[in-house]
């Protein structure tokens, strides 16, 4: 056994690495400059040259940054497979959404005015604790999913990779902030409410199918709800939580919409596959067996501030908005017509009825 101090006695001169200057004469694009703009030096600004050209297909499973020269000699296969086709994972807005994610990070510890959480009546506190139990659970899966897909994103399409990395961070914060709210004001964590399509998102083996479930329908519904957070919140702290989380969800939804648009623009045949996925996923989220008993009850209770009839009325107001916004997003993505073609699930069609 040689102890750490004994190592000194055994010290030799460190070996000198071999000097190889061949990389001084590469034929990568050279002479590239970028000027910081109003928001600093964003990805958009460095994407103006050849380095911004997105290859339609990539066979590179390595970590080599787009535009770098390939290494000399043998290289290993880094992952069993990557999604080399840009239509599989790309979005024209991914870089922009990543930039926005970086500049709009917030802290659940310091950006929420926790001191505005006054004592609430026990029924309301319980309902809020239940809602937050369900939300921390949902957000947990929302972070697992992009993590799962990261190794499959080609480095040549790094913008999508960066976006998903920012989503992992956002969902960590959401998992965290709802757990914090549940434990901040006396309530605690109540009933788990598994189901509701979480498994379907996690188990999808096609990125676009996953994204249309997670980003467009799932997070779309969540975002519509969070944007109406004023109806649920009882104090400034809760309002801020919903507002900040909604801002993050907007980016996630935007990624899904722009990715689907990119895919359908380049591969229109994929539309039917996505319709199928949405058929299945709409069915899952309205399936009474999949319903989260705590979530629905607590949400309605909070919306009505204890008045269940009023809660139901507002619930349908929320649901209607969720469905309308969902249909609008599909329109923007180039997958319009689900309502008109009778494909939208009847329970969601029913939600459009003003009465």
């Amino acid at each position, binding site marked *: 056994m040689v102890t750490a101090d004994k190592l000194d006695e055994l010290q030799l001169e460190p070996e000198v690495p071999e000097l190889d200057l061949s*990389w001084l004469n590469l034929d990568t694009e050279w002479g590239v400059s970028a000027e*910081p703009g109003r928001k*600093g030096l964003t990805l958009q600004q460095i994407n103006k040259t050849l380095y911004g050209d997105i290859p339609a297909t990539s066979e590179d499973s390595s970590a080599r*940054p787009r535009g770098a020269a390939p290494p000399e000699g043998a*290289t*290993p296969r880094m992952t069993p497979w990557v999604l080399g086709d840009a239509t599989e994972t790309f979005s024209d807005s991914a870089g922009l959404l990543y930039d926005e994610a970086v*500049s709009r*990070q917030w802290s659940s510890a310091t950006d929420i005015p926790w001191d505005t959480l006054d004592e609430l009546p026990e029924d309301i506190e319980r309902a809020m604790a239940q809602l937050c139990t369900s939300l921390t659970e949902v957000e947990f899966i929302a972070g697992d999913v992009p993590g799962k897909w990261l190794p499959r994103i080609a480095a040549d399409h790094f913008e999508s990779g960066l976006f998903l990395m920012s989503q992992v961070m956002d969902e960590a914060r959401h998992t965290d902030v709802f757990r914090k709210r549940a434990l901040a*004001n006396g309530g605690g964590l109540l009933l788990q409410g598994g189901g509701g399509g979480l498994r379907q998102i996690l188990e999808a083996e096609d990125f676009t199918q996953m994204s249309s479930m997670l980003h467009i329908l799932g997070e779309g519904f969540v975002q519509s709800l969070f944007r109406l957070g004023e109806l649920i919140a009882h104090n400034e702290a809760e309002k801020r939580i919903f507002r900040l989380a909604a801002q993050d969800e907007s980016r996630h939804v935007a990624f899904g919409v722009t990715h689907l648009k990119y895919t359908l623009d380049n591969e229109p045949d994929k539309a039917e596959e996505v319709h199928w996925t949405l058929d299945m996923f709409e069915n899952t989220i309205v399936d009474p067996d999949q319903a989260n008993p705590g979530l629905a009850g607590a949400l309605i209770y909070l919306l009505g501030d204890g008045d*269940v009839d009023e809660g139901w009325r507002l619930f349908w107001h929320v649901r209607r908005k969720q469905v309308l916004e969902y249909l609008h997003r599909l329109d923007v993505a180039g997958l319009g017509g689900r309502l008109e073609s009778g494909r939208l699930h009847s329970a969601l069609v029913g939600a459009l009825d003003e009465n």
Partner: protein
Amino acid sequence: MPENDVVAAAKERLEESGLPSDWLDTPVHWGVKAKEQATPENGGLRFEYLNVDVYGEVPEYWENNTEIPRGAIPDTRTEQMGYSIFNKSEVWSDLCAGLYEDAIADRWNSSADIPWDTLAPIGSDLERAVCQIATLMSEYGWTKAQTTGRWLQEISYGYIEVKLFLGTVVFDGARLYEVWRKRALANGGGLGRGGRNWKFLPLTQSYTFSEFCVASIMHDAMLIGLLRRGEQLAQTDAERTIYELCQKDIERHLAYFVDHMRYLMLREPVRREEVHRYLNKAEWYLAKDGDDTLYSALAVIMGDGREGAEEAMADVAELRREQVETYLGYLRQCHLGDRDDRLNEELRKWAGIMPAEEVEKIPV
């Protein structure tokens, strides 16, 4: 029936309306008020402050394969989600919650927090060298984020603090990737040559989280050895800031990986030899890969151009020696000090440590 009248009345109203009401009188651990610790002096409502009552009990073995929040009441109808890590010793460190909040408090933005306007022409050789290093840094950031992200779906909510922290590692990896890409494309240069990536296989291939952790310690330690030389290597304030900010991030990652491995070694000493095998593999790939462009690019920077590179190689060798020393230092903190004796022969040369067989001849 709940004793509280308000709750009882609420339950009744829900039932009349056909809504589930079980959640209202579920046996909850009532009265946890983490907000009471959320003062500005305390850093707001940090995640550490949630660990009270049953919610702070991190089990040795977590039995639930769904996404159920730790401390909530299970719904047995929920499908299993395919998590594979259920042992505290496999992932845990007491530092996670704090490191997670630190990462958020220390967050930075490569667009706005780097004084890009301090970039100035530095001559073609130096620009090439900086860009070559930037290319390799980006590769590591990408690999770090991808390979860390892969572990999220393996870890259950029982160890939520670990997962939250790993989320910040993924995000830090993204920034490591893009801040160096920006540096390469901002100052009249371009990207250099990609690395061979063999050295990353222990990260991408890792079958166990322990392997991933020790491979991360090795790579992060080598990187921190380099980042700590930022003052000397940086050509402008922009680069100086990049080195500093990246260093802070990687130090947080090391704090977790090291503390976790220390915990594992204490809890499961029987796994020591297994861990050494992971280290054998990680070191072998690192040595074989050689990172030749990295050290040559460093020589051009330290030699102030290609003419001075040959002479600067002695300094580069010293830097590489420091890197290996830094790595061994972190392993000692994990109670893996016996690695000193077992270090890969090539890395021994890098560090100027006598070959193992020579050492054995020395009478102790």
